[in-house]
């Protein structure tokens, strides 16, 4: 038995195939584009080729993400909150708060001990609390995303950033560069600023341990450190492939239907 999960996000499309025992057999992602239907199908075909199967051999396909409505070959559609809850709880039954930071939106989902969603909040208005913000800041600082994560951890200085908007933040970063502030301290300031936005949103649902972080930004250890500090947490659970949790949740839910 094969089940596929697709997560058609604003910036990246993630796909994976699991078997009847929920083992991930293969996964792939690519940049989302104009026709996400074709992009998703190509990704799935590549996964099938890797596994030596055809698309027709996949029993069912589930889709989530902001571009889910454009996918015409999926059997089921799921909300982003639902797939986050499903996938994280599958790995760790002690998680009560899930924080997801995607490219263009972030969300917080609170679970009860059965894994049912009891509270949720989505912020899709302001890019200053999302992965796109980090990508833009990394470009402005002329460093890679990997460096962005590592440099932040080397900083011992806190510089407050006042800008709450991605446009103003960029000019604030440029003036910090011109005034000779060390890159590592600027990177930390950016991570602190994003963490502060996400933390304010998370506080709406009263953060309860254990807390899991998913989405691409979970790979930025500097951001994780800032978020832990801001929420006064000793630990944040991060799954192995935090950016695939949406696709995994969609595949898990599909497997149950």
């Amino acid at each position: 038995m094969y089940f596929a999960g697709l997560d058609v996000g604003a910036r990246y499309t993630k796909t994976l195939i699991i078997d009847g025992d929920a083992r991930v057999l293969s996964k792939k992602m690519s940049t989302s584009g104009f026709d996400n239907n074709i992009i998703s199908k190509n990704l799935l075909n590549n996964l099938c080729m890797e596994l030596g199967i055809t698309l027709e051999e996949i029993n069912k396909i589930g889709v989530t993400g902001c571009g889910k409505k454009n996918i015409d070959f999926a059997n089921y559609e799921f909300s982003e909150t639902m797939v986050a809850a499903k996938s994280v709880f599958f790995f760790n039954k002690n998680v009560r708060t899930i924080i997801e930071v995607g490219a263009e939106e972030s969300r917080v989902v609170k679970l009860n001990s059965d894994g049912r969603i009891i509270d949720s909040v989505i912020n899709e208005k302001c890019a200053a609390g999302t992965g796109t913000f980090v990508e833009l800041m990394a470009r402005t600082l002329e460093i890679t995303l990997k460096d962005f994560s590592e440099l932040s951890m080397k900083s011992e200085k806190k510089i407050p950033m006042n800008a709450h908007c991605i446009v103003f933040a960029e000019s604030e970063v440029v003036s910090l560069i011109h005034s000779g502030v060390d890159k590592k301290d600027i990177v930390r300031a950016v991570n602190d600023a994003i963490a502060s936005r996400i933390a304010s949103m998370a506080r709406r649902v009263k953060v309860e341990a254990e807390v899991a972080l998913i989405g691409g930004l979970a790979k930025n250890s500097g951001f994780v450190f800032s978020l832990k500090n801001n929420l006064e947490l000793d630990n944040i659970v991060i799954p192995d492939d935090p950016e695939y949790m949406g696709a995994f949740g969609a595949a898990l839910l599909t497997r149950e239907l």
Partner: protein
Amino acid sequence: MIVHYGYLDASGEYFITVDDSKCSVCIEKGCIKACPKSIFMESENDYGEKVMMVKDEVRKMLKYICAECKPSVNRPPLPCVTACPYDAITHSW
């Protein structure tokens, strides 16, 4: 399930919070008719319950859409909150 619809930006937090466990037993769904800006709709939540939701397209504009119901002085009771017999709706601003 409690759902916070809205956003935060540099000027503040603009969320309408709905306890949709109450909506699932509310037959009338009076909030939908009461809102002069028609921002609410009936839909199924993740657990297949018929609840009230804030429409997608207005979630990023709540501060401006609700402005008419929220004059800065002498604010009257909000039509949506008044229409709800279960106290399921709260506004953060």
